[in-house]
């Protein structure tokens, strides 16, 4: 079950998406998310979803992996959908449990539920694609570069980026460690995958205590190792790999710009709305 966690995992590859500059990827993702929340019609949402799906196909990350990351949010999706259907009473009444009940399923509620589900799916799809196609080092390098103006405000951007690199670097290590400790305790009969909730919670101490102890040990060892290699805090450090924008980034940016323009046009210009598409949320 621990092995099913794919968030933050990186799948090496040589696709168009992999080769995009990580800085461009982050900025484009932010633009994409903002645009996603500007969507007001099903047409504009479909455009954005199409963009996300195209990106996923271009990345050649196996659909099974994508599905795994989506599976994690199914509960969230169901929850939001139910809330929308229960609390939204706009539009025509579709179904009532009984005559004169204050609760009713309305077209407005159903539309809003579908709208939210598609929006969250598109969001998760592209966000997980960023970590799937960008290694942790590149990602933090890019974040450091993007945040470097903050240095003027005396914010220790480099240290923050290094902390993030280390944290990301240790996710798989700690997952493996948890896996080993869990197996070892299961070998002694710990009820980690069976028994009631109380038993499972109790059995978890046998996992978290050793995990905590070894995390501290690892942190101390890493600190010593870094000091041995004369690590200092950011001053005058150069990079082995330099990031460069290429034609790919231009293509990606222009494509997203076109999609965003279409979304804004259809969402905000009343003529376009009445001509072609009905707005959903009023």
């Amino acid at each position, binding site marked *: 079950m621990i092995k099913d966690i794919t968030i933050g995992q990186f*799948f090496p590859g040589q696709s168009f998406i992999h080769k995009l500059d990580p800085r461009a990827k982050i900025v484009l993702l932010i633009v994409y998310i903002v645009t996603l929340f500007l969507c007001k019609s099903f047409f504009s949402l479909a455009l954005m979803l199409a963009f996300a799906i195209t990106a996923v196909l271009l990345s050649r990350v*196996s659909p099974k992996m994508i599905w795994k990351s989506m599976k994690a949010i199914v509960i969230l999706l169901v929850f939001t959908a139910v809330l929308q259907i229960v609390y939204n009473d706009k539009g025509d009444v579709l179904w009532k449990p009984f005559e004169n009940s204050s609760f009713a399923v309305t077209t407005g509620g159903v539309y809003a539920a579908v709208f939210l589900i598609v929006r969250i799916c598109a969001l998760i799809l592209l966000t997980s694609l960023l970590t799937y196609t960008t290694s942790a080092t590149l990602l933090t390098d890019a974040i450091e570069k993007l945040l470097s103006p903050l240095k003027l405000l005396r914010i220790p951007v480099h240290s923050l980026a290094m902390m993030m690199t280390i944290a990301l670097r240790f996710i798989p290590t700690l997952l493996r460690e948890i896996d080993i400790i869990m*197996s070892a305790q299961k*070998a*002694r*009969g710990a009820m980690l995958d069976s028994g009631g909730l109380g038993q499972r919670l109790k059995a978890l101490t046998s996992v978290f205590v*050793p995990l905590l*102890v070894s995390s501290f040990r690892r942190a101390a060892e890493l600190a010593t190792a870094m000091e041995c290699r004369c690590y200092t805090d950011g001053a005058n450090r150069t990079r082995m790999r330099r990031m460069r924008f290429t034609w790919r980034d231009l293509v990606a940016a222009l494509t997203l710009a076109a999609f965003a323009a279409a979304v804004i046009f259809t969402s905000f210009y009343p003529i376009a709305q009445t001509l072609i598409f009905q707005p959903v949320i009023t």
Partner: protein
Amino acid sequence: MPILEAKGISFGYGHHTPFEKQAVRNVSFSVEKGECLAVIGHTGSGKSTLMQMLNGLLKPEEGQVLLNGEDINRSKKTAAAARFRVGLCFQYPEYQLFGETSAEDIAFGPKNMGLAADEIRRRVKDAASIVGLPEEKLSVSPFDLSGGQKRRCAIAGVIAMEPEILILDEPIAGLDPAGREEILDLIRRYRAENGATVIIVTHSMETAAEIADRVLVLDRGSVALTGTPAEIFSDPEKLNSIGLDVPSFTRIIAAIRKAGVPVEDAYTLSAAADVLSSLWKGGRAT
């Protein structure tokens, strides 16, 4: 009938991802009651995965694991029960200690078996004495023990379940020579006192030669060789071809013979010492 038998078992990780790896491929072997089997192989040869299939932690994708002739994966219940019947002590078990006292940590397995308090106390005491953990250390936090004591405390946690078969995954890894000798002594004592069946995973040829009745050599997830230490180590070329070597003392004796002195092969350290000392005395006499 062998006490434990693996019939053509296979296991792989990360199917349908770029990290797919077949860890164990169609492995068959058996262990007789009271026997000590050493499983040797390189890092990544599938030793640890194989061991986790023997106690029901992992379910083989193909093949069966038979304990006293019965498939342990018949049902979820039998697979869970197999964890107590085949005691598996992981690599670096001291990193899995968590109890407030050593006694509490050793009692974790027996407690999970649902034994009575008296029985648990007896088992903790017995297990501690088998591994040679002084009684006054039982009331101390396991994190305050020395490195070798921590390891022995962790092994006691598995022995306290009184399993029919004890599996030790790299029990001497990362220990100094004295700590190493203590663990090997512990295994010998445990076998002598209980007639216990033991499987030891190691990449140390010396340990395998020293302690095992039979040796199983794994190479990239498959069985490369099986036999007694004498059979395995009398053919250095075959071992070399899969990147392993015979024990250092066996190599020394073989070199002496090659130099023209007729000596017998030695597969344990004490046998090698005997050969050398008789040679030394003989040399003086002439």
